[in-house]
């Protein structure tokens, strides 16, 4: 139990409450399929900070791609399948800002006609934390033992920043990495151009927006762009590998857990 509770609360964050003993991981489908090492890093860190981590094996996806493309009923169905898996969890931690936003802000609204289900969704949403938010605001992490070294810059993904109001926590954590230098890039809060299906429907525009983001990152002198969103990482890393090969794109957890 942490009695000091002096949290620098950002808008849109949940109640911190007493420090939970166990944490359920909502992995997200993108992390599961493309970035399992990010999940591994998260687990390593959460355990290091004294949490017992659970991972409900039947989880699938938060349903955001469905909602964002106009398939609200279908998104509700996916949500309905996943909510019960986390009913016993004290806290639900998610590696991606956009999925975190979906779980926390959109889930309850998916069930306008079903009061009971809506209540369960609200109870679920109340327990959701994005990863960096959880470390800083709930676990009150003050030290990071990371072998990472280099100049990094942080990308504020749209849903994490404007949806969940999280901007300080990731930076706070990056500043704790002894041999990392954090520099701010111009337009850190500008969209990277992913936008889910947008990236495939309008590839030229998506790529043009990405070009601006990568240029800003490099102009700031950073060698690594850090983000807390699998979609942004997929997009920025994929683009950097083609057009900015010297620039690495990493998830915050990877930086913090580096040996």
């Amino acid at each position, binding site marked *: 139990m942490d009695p000091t509770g002096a949290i620098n609360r950002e808008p849109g964050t949940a109640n911190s409450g007493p420090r939970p003993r166990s944490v359920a991981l909502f*992995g997200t489908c993108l*992390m*599961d*399929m*493309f*970035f*399992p090492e990010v*999940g*591994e890093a998260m*687990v390593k860190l959460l*355990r*290091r900070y004294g949490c*017992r*981590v659970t*991972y409900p*094996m*039947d989880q*699938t*996806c938060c349903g955001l*791609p*469905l*909602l*964002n*493309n*106009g*398939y*609200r009923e*279908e998104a509700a*169905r*996916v949500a*309905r*399948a996943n909510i019960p898996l986390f009913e016993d969890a004290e806290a639900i931690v998610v590696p991606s800002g956009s999925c975190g936003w979906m779980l926390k802000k959109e889930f309850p609204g998916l069930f306008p006609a079903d009061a009971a289900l809506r209540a369960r969704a609200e109870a679920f949403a109340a327990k959701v934390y994005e990863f960096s938010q959880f470390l800083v605001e709930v676990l009150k992490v003050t030290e990071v033992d990371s072998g990472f070294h280099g100049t990094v810059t942080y990308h504020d993904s*749209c849903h994490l920043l*404007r*949806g969940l109001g999280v901007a300080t926590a990731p930076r706070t954590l990056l500043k704790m990495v002894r041999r990392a230098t954090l520099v701010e890039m111009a337009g850190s809060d*500008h*969209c990277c*151009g992913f*936008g*889910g299906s*947008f*990236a*495939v*429907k*309008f*590839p*030229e*525009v*998506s*790529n*043009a*927006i*990405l070009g*601006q983001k990568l240029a800003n990152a490099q102009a700031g002198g950073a060698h690594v762009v850090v983000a807390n969103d699998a979609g942004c990482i997929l*997009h920025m*890393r*994929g*683009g950097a*590998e*083609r057009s900015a090969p010297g620039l690495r794109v990493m998830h915050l957890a990877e930086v913090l857990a580096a040996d």
Partner: protein
Amino acid sequence: MPSAVEAFLERSRAAVRDTFLQTALDRATSRLMTARANGFASLPDADAMRDRAKAIKEETVARLDHYLARLAESVEGAGGHVHWAADADETRQIVLRLAREKGVRSIVKSKSMASEEIHLNAALEAAGFRVVETDLGEYIVQIAQEPPSHIIAPAIHKTKEQIAELFSGVAGRALPADPDQLTAWARAKLREEFIQADMGISGANFAVAETGTIVLVTNEGNGRLVTTMPRIHVAVMGMEKVIPALADLPVFLEVLARSATGQKMSVYTTLVRGPRRAGEVDGPDEFHLVIMDNGRRSALGTHLEESLQCLRCGSCLNVCPVYGEVGGHAYGTVYPGPIGIIVSNYIGGHGHTQNLGAASTLCSACLDACPVRIDIPRMLLGLREEAQAKSEVPWAERMAFRMMAKVMASPSLYRMAVAAGRKLLLPFVRNGRVESLPGKLGGWTRFRTLPPIAKKTFRERWREMEKDPHRD
């Protein structure tokens, strides 16, 4: 006949390759974004003001009929005339009739998106009237015979060299590509127009129901000249521009210029109320207000109603990553950018033929920037729901998402799909990356690599990880 989305895709491709446009857009948006941040820094209770402004707009839209009736009463009480126009055609007919009846030959106009929306200039010119746009940016695009590309900076897509060329054509001599000198030439030229014009046509940023006052927010001064020098002043306004009382006006003034350009106030806020009074030496003999519906009514009571609160300030355009790359023309609509996507669904009675809800990354910078906090992302999602419900999206796409829904709602189907996906991608993997994908998905790999699906997904690794080496 391409859909709105297909047309947008074509134009946006061209826009991204247009180096002139890209330079102009970079210049415009970066400047305006910084300016906006600075502007709001000087207003400590900005959020409270935005909430108040929104509340006033909500109240007005909720009682639109009442306030419009009151507005008409007040305008007439002040000696003006009110005309009601159901659609674009009626609006044009009203203005044409006035011009004919009053023996008008030449007309000067100040910036009015409402008149742009109904293609008023073309109708007036076809009927033989001389029409001159007097807002510098609008004057430029008028000479170039192009539509404006931005709500508040109509000619940002033009370089000074291009503008010098345009002006030189009119002047009959070579003018230098220097903004000061080009502006000085335009000032002198347009003065002549103001002096000889019989009719001035303006829009209205606000119309105050309680007093019948039309409010114009401008920077150049042409708005004042258009509403002062000609003997007849006609203001064309979208009916949603009405606000209840004068006391409401400063609330909007505090947030409007700051959002749009970063200025604390625009240079001129002009309150016009009826024609010239006895004893005044300047001002028009007659004042006419044309209140236009043109499809706005159909937004009432729908999920798009909130967009009627729009002040037409352009803030959302300035912060939109998509607009920032493609500019206004790419949208193919009179109103471009985030709010443009929304209103184009009802203005002019277009309906779903203009559903560009997909043309957004849903980053929400627009909601963040809007002085009246219009929830554009919510409405974009609503438009996407409408599009797929009305089968306006390609069948293959709808099937793909319905499949995704089935898969994601079932743990076993999800696991099977992941395994299948991993196998399907394998042939495309080179040096640990997918470098090219077939069909529509090739849009991704044209510019980005894709990692393969991990040999062992996180879930598959969890069984080993479950045993916590640090426990007990």
